[in-house]
């Protein structure tokens, strides 16, 4: 028998990550066996598999717990890893392949975890393994962004751990089940999930780091971390009304940033938050239709957002940047990538016959059922907006618009295969949604393709496009400009260091023996501001060490309460 019931899916990925550095050249194709064999094994054995635990002292950790919800995400992550591995086959950098496998494995570990402590373990592994995909870009900007990223990710983990410890002290159980928002422990966990899910004001790690990762890295990043958070929200906080409003805010605010952002991968990062908003909103409604819509949309989003990130990654690989202001006319030399991008754009905009349509409409229908008219209008606005920035802006400025004179080669073959696979999935699910619907965890009855819904959606999209055409013809459309747009990260990238410097300066002035201190602090600040010009990754800087000590103190405090 080649199928085994007693193998948690993450083990397969971790084992392949171990051998990955040994495989050279064409042999790297063998890495594809990890998602292929792992996924098939899951498919063949899911009925009787599961219930693997690990005993540490008197704690029993549930490493492998299967139900329909975790199974859906399990399949999804295998598909995502398969596509991402094909996409990265040409890369000679072992770091990315090893970390990609470890990262995908951690995501699988988290969705098949049966208790909060196991979730925490994989939660932190997700944080660390994914950070390497950003460090792997090896530019000073990327290294700094990854440092910020890892601090925020670990903070989320620490909040989760603190919440779990408090919960254990209150209830004596760590079982992963419906929690609901009551009491401080659940709030800590809620905020921990909210960070990874990109709640407003907690989202900046995403838009900061994703556009700076390697082309492959961003593909991996877009697939796993946020979707694990969505999975956990659906499991622990379904039907929590506050999520409806958080979700609605998440769908709306990023589209304003996306319209004025120049870095096209950053545009996609903002639209990723926008799509997460639809899922969060669905989870907040909490009916069977809404929850199914949320997880179905997570499934589709991984594929179409992955596809869009892949096309931008292909442009980045060939051109060296993805600034909308300096692209255009690429369809002439990258025709296939252009077509793949258009398929991804149609899917994310929820055109009928593409995958976004069949899942986003479930959330919208559920909102109408609940008479949430204002939220429904917000999401409708966001639907029009997402078409505007992700559906039109991305393909238009990259591949059409004014001719930039760039004539890059078509993407490498393996990238094209990966993009083609994702594009086929987008269309297949859009045309035949039953394939996806039968995997959905809750019982429901819904047909996306009725006349009303198809017509109204096409009207919405066509007239959004008309607005784009009109604004462009009138010259009212804001031009693409190289710039930084302020976001909530301003608080920790500008205000915090600035006030920190001020406090340090004041303190050192007041001290009697301050003179010596002051000179040393200023000297140190000066050294910190000079970036290390080497390509090496400095993982733990002294500043980060302090952050970690602070985080550990937080955990210790939660033990006391």
């Amino acid at each position, binding site marked *: 028998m080649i199928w085994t019931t007693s193998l948690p899916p993450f083990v397969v990925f971790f084992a392949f990550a171990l051998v990955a550095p040994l495989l050279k050249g064409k042999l790297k194709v063998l890495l594809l066996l990890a998602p292929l064999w792992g996924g098939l094994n899951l498919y063949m054995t899911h009925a009787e598999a599961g219930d693997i635990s690990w005993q540490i002292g008197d704690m029993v950790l549930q490493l492998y717990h299967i139900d329909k919800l975790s199974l859906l995400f399990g399949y999804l992550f295998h598909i995502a890893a398969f596509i991402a591995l094909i996409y990265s086959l040409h890369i000679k950098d072992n770091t990315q392949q090893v970390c990609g496998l470890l990262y995908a494995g951690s995501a699988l570990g988290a969705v098949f975890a049966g208790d909060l402590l196991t979730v925490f373990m994989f939660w932190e592994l997700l944080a660390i393994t994914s950070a390497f995909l950003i460090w792997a870009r090896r530019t000073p900007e990327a290294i700094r962004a990854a440092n910020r990223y890892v601090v925020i990710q670990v903070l989320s983990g620490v909040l989760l751990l603190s919440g779990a410890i408090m919960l254990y002290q209150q209830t004596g159980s760590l079982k992963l089940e419906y929690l609901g928002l009551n009491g401080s422990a659940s709030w800590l966990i809620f905020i921990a999930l909210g960070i990874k899910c990109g709640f407003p004001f907690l989202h900046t790690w995403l838009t900061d780091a994703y556009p700076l990762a390697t082309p492959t890295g961003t593909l991996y990043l877009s697939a796993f971390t946020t979707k694990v958070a969505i999975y956990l929200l659906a499991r622990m906080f379904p039907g929590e009304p506050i999520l409806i409003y958080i979700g609605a805010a998440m769908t709306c605010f990023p589209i304003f940033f996306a319209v004025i952002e120049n870095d096209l991968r950053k545009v996609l990062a903002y639209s990723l938050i926008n799509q997460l908003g639809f899922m969060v909103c669905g989870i907040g409604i909490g009916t069977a239709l809404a929850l199914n819509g949320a997880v179905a949309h997570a499934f589709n989003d991984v594929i179409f957002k992955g596809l869009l990130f892949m096309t931008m990654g292909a442009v980045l690989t060939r051109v060296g940047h993805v600034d909308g202001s300096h692209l255009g006319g690429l369809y002439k030399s990258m025709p296939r990538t252009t077509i793949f991008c258009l398929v991804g754009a149609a899917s994310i905009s929820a055109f009928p016959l593409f995958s976004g349509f069949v899942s986003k409409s479930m959330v919208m229908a559920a909102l109408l059922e609940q008479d949430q008219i204002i939220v429904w209008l917000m999401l409708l606005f966001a639907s029009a907006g997402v078409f505007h920035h992700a559906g039109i802006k991305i393909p238009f400025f990259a591949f*059409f618009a004014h001719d930039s004179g760039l004539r890059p080669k078509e993407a490498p073959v393996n990238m094209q295969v990966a993009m083609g696979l994702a594009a086929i999935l987008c269309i297949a699910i859009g045309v035949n949604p039953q394939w996806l619907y039968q995997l959905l965890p809750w019982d429901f009855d819904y047909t996306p393709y009725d006349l009303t819904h198809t017509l109204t959606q096409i009207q*919405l999209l066509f007239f959004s496009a*008309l607005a784009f055409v009109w*604004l462009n013809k009138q010259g009212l459309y804001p031009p693409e400009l190289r710039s930084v747009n302020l976001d909530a990260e301003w608080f920790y*990238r500008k205000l915090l260091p600035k006030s920190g410097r001020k406090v340090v300066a004041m303190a050192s002035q007041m001290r009697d023996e301050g003179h010596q201190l002051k000179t040393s602090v200023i000297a140190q600040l000066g050294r910190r501001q000079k970036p290390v010009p080497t390509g090496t990754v400095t993982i733990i800087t002294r500043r980060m060490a302090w952050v970690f000590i602070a985080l550990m103190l937080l955990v210790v405090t939660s033990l006391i309460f």
Partner: protein
Amino acid sequence: MSDKPTQDGFFDDPKVVSWILRIFYLLCVLLVVADFVVHRHIYTELEKIPAFYALYGFVACVLLVFAASGLRKVLMRSEDYYEAPLNDKSDRQEQE
């Protein structure tokens, strides 16, 4: 872009573009007409407005772009706002 390649693409021809746009406008008109022909299911009062979705899509996008342009005035900073460019100009003097 020092040497600009010839304008050889399919979409460089203004005629092609204007034809595409004409077809697009025609489709938009047809969609509005369809709204009066087809009997839509109505879930909320708002949907009784003729061609509600078309109007909403158009107005939403125009407002979105105007609002975003306005936001630019508030939020836009130069590229080295958070930190000086780290790549090439390592000799650049730090402010402070």
